[in-house]
């Protein structure tokens, strides 16, 4: 048994070596691969643009190809929140998907500052072999409101700019792009024949045989009244207490990132004609919290915000919150949500004796973009060797926090990430070592303080301290 494992390990190492070698060689030759068929579906129904890309690739060279490169124009690359890829394995009925690694990469002859991501294939493609890849990438802040300022009665129109042709370093034999719009109302769109607009779908293509780096800019001007809820800064503090509770405090700085509100805000109109007035504004948000959540509060700097509802069942809890006023374009609001969770749902012990917290990354508010997310995991006093395992790159650092009666302070692991979308809600782990004896430190301290106090009282009462006799 042991022998076979070591054999396998050796095999893997070899494969890995070959892989690296191939990566280097593949980078130099992008014409090794051609895309037989590409289908792109762009979902514009909310302010988070989701792009589903299905690629059928073929290796046309003899050297085996182990990775596929995706190209993005620099404007898009800046707003790129997430790129995910998966490969379909098996035929039709027994189809299953395998997650593939995606990493940013550089190509030497990149035109106009094009940015690249490379997808590592599971098995290198040999000559003539094909593979089907499904890519999901998400763009934030990519819908530009135009006009940039609207009054209360107008609905919000936005520009979306992209290319009718998929930007790719490979030759693309056939491609189609579908844009899904939130309503049937589209002001204008660039035509790159064949182009078809029907219902809520705008279709570009099919286009045949386009050389690498073909680009054909299109602009779509469409109505989008979905709430443009952007959290400029979100600070989530997760405080672990080994007495059985996890306390979470989330500080939000919310802004409506759509077209700015101009002129009058009439409350009478807003309330009497909700369907015509302030359609792009939003007045409530939904936060999905873990099940068994307790002591939920929702407040801001000046006190409790009384408009919230909590629905909770055994699978999940939903907190519906209303900011103090409806948010129109450009209006801001800050608030804090806090709640407690039972410790046993989130804290586990790993086989090597370490403890780990298994908690979800990202922002609990539905359909929001977080420009800057900071998660602070406050470990109990006396815990050591903190380390985090997060499925995507984040900035990490350590801090110390002093809370109730702390002497040495609690270790705080800080995770930071920019441009976070709901797809980032995945579990992450924080590992640390902790000796249970530390739990008793504070009660013992309090007990000894009281003891000393009573002793002092006794001493005072039993000794005459006056100077006079």
């Amino acid at each position: 048994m042991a022998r076979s494992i070591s054999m396998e390990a050796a095999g893997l190492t070899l494969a890995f070596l070959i892989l690296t070698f191939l990566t280097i060689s593949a980078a130099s030759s992008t014409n090794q691969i051609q895309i037989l068929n590409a289908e792109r579906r762009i979902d514009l129904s909310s302010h988070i643009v989701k792009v589903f890309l299905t690629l059928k690739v073929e290796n046309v060279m003899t050297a085996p190809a182990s990775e596929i490169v995706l190209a993005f124009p620099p404007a898009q690359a800046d707003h790129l929140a997430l790129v995910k890829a998966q490969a379909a394995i098996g035929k039709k009925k027994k189809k299953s998907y395998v997650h593939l690694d995606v990493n940013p990469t550089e190509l030497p002859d990149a035109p106009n500052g094009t940015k690249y991501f490379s997808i590592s294939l599971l098995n290198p493609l040999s000559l003539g072999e094909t593979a089907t890849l499904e890519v999901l990438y998400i763009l934030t802040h990519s819908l530009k409101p135009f006009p940039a300022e609207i009054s209360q009665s107008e609905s919000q129109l936005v520009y979306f700019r992209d290319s009718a042709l998929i930007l790719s370093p490979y030759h693309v034999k056939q491609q189609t792009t579908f844009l899904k719009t939130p309503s049937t109302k589209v002001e204008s769109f660039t035509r790159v024949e064949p182009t078809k607009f029907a219902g809520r779908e705008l279709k570009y293509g099919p286009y045949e045989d386009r050389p690498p780096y073909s680009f054909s800019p299109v602009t779509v001007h469409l109505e989008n009244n979905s709430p443009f809820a952007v959290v400029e800064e979100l600070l989530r503090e997760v405080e672990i207490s080994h007495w059985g509770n996890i306390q979470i405090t989330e500080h939000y700085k919310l802004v409506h990132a759509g077209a700015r509100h101009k002129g009058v805000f009439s409350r009478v109109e807003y309330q009497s004609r909700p369907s015509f007035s302030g359609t792009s504004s939003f007045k409530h948000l939904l936060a999905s919290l873990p099940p068994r959540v307790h002591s939920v509060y929702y407040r801001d700097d000046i006190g409790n915000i009384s408009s919230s509802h909590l629905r909770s069942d055994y699978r999940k809890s939903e907190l519906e919150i209303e900011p103090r006023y409806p948010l129109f374009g450009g209006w801001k609001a800050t608030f804090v949500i806090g709640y407690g969770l039972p410790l046993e749902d989130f804290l586990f012990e790993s086989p090597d004796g370490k403890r780990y917290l298994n908690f979800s990354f990202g922002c609990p508010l539905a359909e929001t973009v977080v420009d800057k997310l900071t998660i602070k995991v406050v470990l109990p006093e006396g815990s050591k060797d903190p380390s985090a395992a997060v499925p995507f790159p984040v900035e990490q650092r350590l801090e110390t926090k002093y809370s109730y009666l702390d002497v040495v302070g609690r270790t705080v692991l800080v995770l930071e990430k920019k441009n976070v979308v709901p797809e980032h809600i995945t579990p992450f782990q924080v590992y640390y070592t902790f000796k249970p004896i530390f739990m008793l430190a504070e009660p013992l301290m309090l007990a000894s303080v009281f003891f000393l106090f009573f002793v002092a009282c006794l001493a005072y009462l039993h000794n005459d301290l006056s100077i006079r006799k």
Partner: protein
Amino acid sequence: MADGESSREATARTLRNAFGNVFSFFILLLIGILAFSIRLFSVIKYESVIHEFDPYFNYRVTQFLTKNGIYDFWNWFDDRTWYPLGRVIGGTVYPGLTLTAGTLWWLLNSLNIPLSVETVCVFTAPIFSAFASWATYLLTKEVKGTGAGLTAAVLLAMVPSYISRSVAGSYDNEAVAIFALIFTFYLYIKTLNTGSLFYATLNALAYFYMVCSWGGYTFIINLIPMHVLLCIVTGRYSSRLYIAYAPLVVLGTLLAALVPVVGFNAVMTSEHFASFLVFIIIHVVALVYHVKGNLSPRMFKVAVTLVVSVGLVVCCAMIAVLIALVASSPTKGWSGRSLSLLDPTYASKYIPIIASVSEHQPPTWPSYFMDINVLAFLVPAGIIACFLPLSDASSFVVLYIVTAVYFSGVMVRLMLVFAPAACIMSGIALSEAFNVLTRSIKFQLPGSSGISQSGDTSMNTEGEQNDIAKTEKMDETAKERPSKKNKRKEKEPVVKASIRSRIERRLLVLPLEASVIAIILLVLLGAFYVKVACKVDAALNVHALLTSTLEKSSRVGRWKLVHCVWAAAEAYSAPSIVLTTYSREGGLHVFDDFREAYAWLSHNTEVDDKVASWWDYGYQTTAMANRTVIVDNNTWNNTHIATVGTAMSSPEKAAWEIFNSLDVKYVLVVFGGLVGYPSDDINKFLWMVRIGGGVFPHIKEPDYLRDGQYRIDSQATPTMLNCLMYKLSYYRFVETDGKAFDRVRQTEIGKKYFKLTHFEEKASSTSSPKRSGTGKRNPWH
């Protein structure tokens, strides 16, 4: 035998004393907890939030203090208020409360207890009311013994008048000042009883704390001299009196002058003159007593004639100078508020701004009843009890209650000063009543009457005897206290005194049945006082919520029926920035429009924008919205307030010009006509006209009144219908229900359809609530 008995008695006594002490310690602890927790209704029913208007300012100052430190605090020039004048906060604020809460916060944080400044501020008042009830215990104990002290402490912990000013969240000067007041009085009495310089120094420090905390310190510095004078006049002068008074004046005045807001006022204004005058008198008297002690009676007579003739001349000269000085200042050296205390009609005649504040009005009879309820009946009994026997301490308490009754009659706010006095008096009355009744029972119980003389030491009766001994002990301690008559008695052997007092007591005995019934009644009364509260609480809950939008005055009727502290706590708990009602389906509806408006201003206007509103909302706007305001609740500049009042009562164009000259971008108006919130700007409008008209004569009150009546319906005057306040309040009001029916004024408004020419509606607050805070902006900005 006698030896053994006495030693046994001694150990029994110490043991009993120890038990008594521990027992009263625990009672005090419970009283403290009661005082603290009875004030938490507001946090439990609503939330942990600062209440009302002034507390928001104090909270903001505390925030500044904790953030920037004490030195910056003293030098703080606030440019966020009274634009464009600004306000020197460090020099115009009583810093006691702020420093107290700041210190508390700092202490907690240095122990790594991360409480926010807001939390500390919210709970300062309940904590200090616990302190205040302990201070009451100490004060009353000095006057009439432990029993009275405990009773008074319980009463103070629950007295509605004090609760109303110290619920969690009402973070105002009075919160700590009442404690400081009572504690200063306690130390004064303690010094008077002991003649110890240590307590005299502490007294001066306590007085300093009081000066730091509240403008009401002038009450102390006038009451104590009055008492000293009373003592001198009634021939009760003693060295203890001198020690109690002289250091207080010297140290206290020096310390008071250290507080920036008081400064030289401590020696310059008429409020303090009484203390200096008495200071001189007490020295003269001290000298006289000293000389009298050293000279023979004949020599003394000669000396008196000599001194009196010379002294009269000097005094006349000095008084003449003094009168000239005082007369040269326009207000005769008195501040407006103090003057209105002496002459209740002063404010309404000359300073409408003082008269416009509801808490500066004289209270109504029902409000006495509501604020101190059953205590009102006990006070006379307490006063009588204070006269048997009259000591220095009890004469002080009597003087205190007499003056406090007068002041509370002038200004409803000073009811707060009256409440502790009433509690002390009632405590004394109740405990005396219990004393008399239990004693009567004890002396008449079958089998125990003969025991006290025979000296029987059987186990049953020992307890009885001990009780007697205990009351004797109490009497002794009471007699140890001042008054020259009793001093002689102290010298007499204790046994003799106790026999005599026993005989006296036997004479005071009431019939057994009567006293048993009376005790039961008293206990029942006490139980009723709390029990009814519990029972009615539930019923009232609904009732209170139904009527929550009604004014306080209408609550009075309810309080007549049920004197219950708990429900009083409920009535006083509403933070005034949030109101709740139950909808018909039983759901809770929260009106949170004030904070909605402030949050909007804070997040959606530029940091340097100026917001104009009537001064009531000034403190809240600076604290919650963090925007610059034109006027606020610190009404120091009448002209400035009059300017805003004028703008509100002018037609749109003139108002726009005024606001433009003040750089105002937003105007905040509170309007309650939609949901029936009565304290809105339309109801306050006449004060704006009056105050504005006081400075700018072109605003005339009669222009806004039709036949002397204030109305906004079709009978209203054109000036009224065209003024800015009317227009901002009722802009597009008709679109809400089609008729423009104002639920507060119970009428349809006079002018329904009009457009704003110089202002535009920027935002207004939620749903159908009582208040639409309308931030309106000038279109050319």
